[in-house]
């Protein structure tokens, strides 16, 4: 089908003249504009409300979720001799030898002559740290309010519910609420910028399995495979020799219903068909990426799709996008030494390729990537693995990041120490809300709007993570 940059341009110019008011569900609105003319989508026709902020530049936030709870102690590892010796004495057979670590030299030294290193597999991330493109956020995790060890044991302050439970903590990292939550902060970021995108569908894109992170109050997760949107074969050609059957399939599968499950399934199919047509056309029109991504690395293939979508931003008319990718297998109660290295290799390689792609596209400082996970793990070993923890260390990367730096507070390397809630599990000293607020601020969210994205953010000091230049 034909499209033109001028129609997209018209749409973008129209955004700023709209009034804020109640608006239709995106899916229904999309259908009202007609299947045949996705490029003529008019925001006015769909009754879109104005975003909290109108923006003129492009930015993307990319969440790399490590499912199963990454063992942070073997990811960002003590390097100074004294602390490393303590780490080895506690972790015993699980400890990574000091001479294998990639020592980090931050711009601002850690206190008390502490030094940290990265796991040996994280060579790409080490380069990014050294180049000032990556920061390390120490001991970050979900909190409702700042919490001391005494308060934790006394239960005298509200704590995140269902600590140490995988599914709930995944939900809490992504949405501030336990399992059953229906909106996440990635989606809530999307809510604020929906009207800046020519097609709101492409605001929150998930290249892995469903994640509450990607759903907002209005923003809807749009899921794609790592090779692109899946095309409904019935949209082209015959089914069982019959064009009428192909057409009937499209009609049936998108039919509205009073039954909520039927209606939701139809809504997903409708969005799938309409978005695929646009996305595929946009991807085809976009500059081809030459940066290599390892096709055997499932995280790399997802990030490659993210890069391709970013490359298509002009064709798609997108200004603000939130992406979600993930890698599983981190729940290493067992086999930590045999399985963790491969996972970390995938993480380092995939993120490095992705950063290189953003450089190739000329948007390196417009894309920020961060890692997240269910929780950290115990410092102690169970013989060949570690158990569920809480606070963890995570990475923030991008051209706008004030990298080669540690953020947050370095925890004590100890069992029964001042940060320990049992077996070396860390009580977080930086909350997910604080990390998220820093990312959201960079993304363009005014301080006054932060509570709509992070309900508990008012409980925390902001500005403690000067992650961006």
């Amino acid at each position, binding site marked *: 089908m034909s499209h033109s940059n001028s129609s997209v341009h018209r749409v973008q110019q129209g955004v700023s003249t709209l009034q804020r008011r109640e608006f239709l569900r995106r899916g229904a609105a999309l259908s009202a504009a007609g299947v045949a003319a996705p490029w003529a989508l008019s925001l006015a026709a769909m009754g879109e409300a104005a975003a909290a902020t109108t923006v003129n530049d492009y930015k993307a936030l990319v969440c790399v979720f490590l499912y199963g709870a990454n063992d942070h102690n073997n990811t960002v590892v003590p390097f100074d001799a004294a602390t490393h010796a303590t780490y080895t004495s506690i972790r015993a057979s699980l400890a990574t030898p000091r001479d294998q670590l990639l020592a980090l030299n931050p711009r601002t030294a850690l206190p008390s002559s502490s030094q940290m290193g990265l796991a040996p597999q994280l060579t790409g991330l080490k380069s990014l740290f050294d180049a000032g493109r990556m920061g390390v956020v120490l001991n970050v995790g979900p909190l409702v309010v700042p919490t001391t060890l005494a308060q934790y044991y006394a239960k005298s302050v509200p704590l995140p519910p269902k600590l140490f439970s995988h599914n709930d903590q995944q939900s809490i990292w992504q949405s501030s609420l336990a399992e059953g939550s229906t909106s996440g902060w990635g989606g809530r970021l999307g809510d604020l910028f929906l009207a800046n995108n020519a097609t709101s569908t492409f605001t929150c894109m998930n290249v892995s399995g469903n994640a509450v992170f990607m759903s907002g109050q209005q923003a809807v997760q749009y899921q794609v495979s790592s090779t692109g949107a899946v095309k409904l074969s019935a949209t082209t050609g015959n089914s069982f020799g019959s064009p*009428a059957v192909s057409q009937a399939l499209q009609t049936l599968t998108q039919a509205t219903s009073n039954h909520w*499950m039927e209606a*939701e399934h139809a809504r997903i199919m409708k969005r799938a068909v309409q978005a695929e047509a646009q996305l595929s056309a946009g991807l085809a029109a976009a500059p081809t990426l030459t940066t290599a991504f390892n096709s055997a690395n499932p995280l790399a293939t997802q990030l490659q799709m993210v890069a391709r979508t970013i490359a298509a931003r002009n064709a798609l008319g997108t200004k603000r996008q939130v992406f979600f990718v993930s890698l599983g297998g981190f729940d290493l109660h067992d086999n930590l030494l045999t399985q963790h290295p491969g996972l970390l290799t995938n993480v380092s390689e995939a993120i490095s390729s992705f950063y290189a792609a953003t450089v190739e596209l000329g948007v390196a400082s417009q894309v920020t990537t961060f890692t997240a996970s269910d929780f950290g793990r115990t410092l102690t070993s169970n013989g060949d693995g570690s158990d569920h923890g809480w606070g963890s260390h995570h990475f923030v990367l991008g051209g706008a990041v004030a990298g080669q730096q540690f953020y947050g507070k370095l925890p004590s390397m100890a069992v029964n120490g001042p940060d320990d809630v049992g077996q070396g599990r860390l009580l977080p000293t930086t909350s997910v809300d604080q990390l998220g607020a820093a990312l959201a601020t960079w993304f363009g969210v005014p301080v006054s709007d932060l509570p709509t994205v992070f309900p508990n953010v008012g409980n925390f000091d902001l500005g403690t993570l000067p992650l961006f230049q």
Partner: protein
Amino acid sequence: MQSKGFEAWLNEQMAMPRGQSHWDWMVANGYAVSTNLFNFSGVDNTIWRKLMSSPDVLRQRVAFALSEIFVISMDGLPVSWRGMVAANYLDILEAHAFGNYRQLLEAVTLSVGMGVYLNMRGNQKADGKGREPDENYAREVMQLLTIGLHKLNPDGSVQTVNGAPVDSYTQDDIRGLARVFTGWDYDRPSASVPDHAARPMAFSASRHSPEAKSFLGVNLPAGTDGVGELGIALDTLANHPNVGPFIGRQLIQRLVSSNPSLAYVSRVAAAFANNGQGVRGDLTAVVRAVLMDVEARTPSTQPGSGKLREPILRLVQWARTFNASSPLGQWNVGNTSSASTRLGQSPLRSPSVFNFFRPGYVPPGTPLGSAGLVAPEFQITNESTVVGYANWMRTVIGNGVGEVKADYTPWLPLAGDAPALFDALNSLLAAGQLGAVSRATVTAAVASMPVSTEVNRINRICATVWLIMCSPEYLAQK
């Protein structure tokens, strides 16, 4: 008549003998060989064989439901003879599907499959130098297999104190149970034969924690016999008042509907507590209670009723309805995990111990969420899977999958009459739940298709089946 007929069918199904086990089939078909030490060759085959063709269809259905609660996955069995380990695990679920929950729990706990998946195998006592027992099974057996996170009322609702839920276990309980679950390992493992994969794990006192253990109000003094301790732990878990509502509600969700009423859950929990002959945990009583309940047999017109059929069951229904056969006995449907080109799920291949979808999943931005309802199967429903399913089923319905082929000949006499064909297949596949509008759409399209040759008529049947099986009215089973 319906009631008496259904009851008789239940009795017949529950009494039906088990067919050839997964283990025996793997051996008989040459899969139990050392070249398959580190792969799962044959496992998908035997799974689809039984799901699609085994006469004890109810047992298969219940065993499959159990595999989504007592989850292990081929994704997490990095051991030798892993295919036989998986086969044996499924045999255990099948063996206990109409047995007793306490025996099922013990068989699962001591299975090599679960032992490897959640790390009880080889779990050792603390060494006094920082190594502590692995807590994985202790945590997940409570969170997922027995009592759940919160204390429940008999109707499945969460108990509250001052408006807040009450935890059913603490980290201390986990630590205590983790000590109990030490000292177990393969029983006489071998690299040359897989036999240990079928034996319950064996106990070794030297690796077992001699410490005192406290969990869920039970205090075991130091030095208590380890095998006895395991029995006490499993008794404690199985006798917990949460189990009936916790497991019962999930069985309703797997077999009937996503949002059973509190009263429905109560009735099923009551059957768990007492099968009518004073026995607790009788799964035949529980399954009967789930399937025969008035709420299971009364169609609802509520907008959030029923459940979204999971893709695996849609494929199995196609196979059963159309008498699918596998001429060489291979049942080579394969791994159907791909979201974009298959079903987005495959038996015994869930991404984690949390199954393909959570019992409490709420699809965002829907009236379901606003109404406080859940729809677990929507967790694996997205733009890739809905299209992938429609695309793949077109191929499967038309050509079969692997060597598995359907038999559409019984419908040939109706193929010339599109409305009659539709009515028959709507009734069989969707309990007649496709309405007049869909009927008009389907029949108009099918009536426009040629009809003179047998190939023409088979195409008409395939088209009708495909259109029905892609319709939202079919997909949401009410």
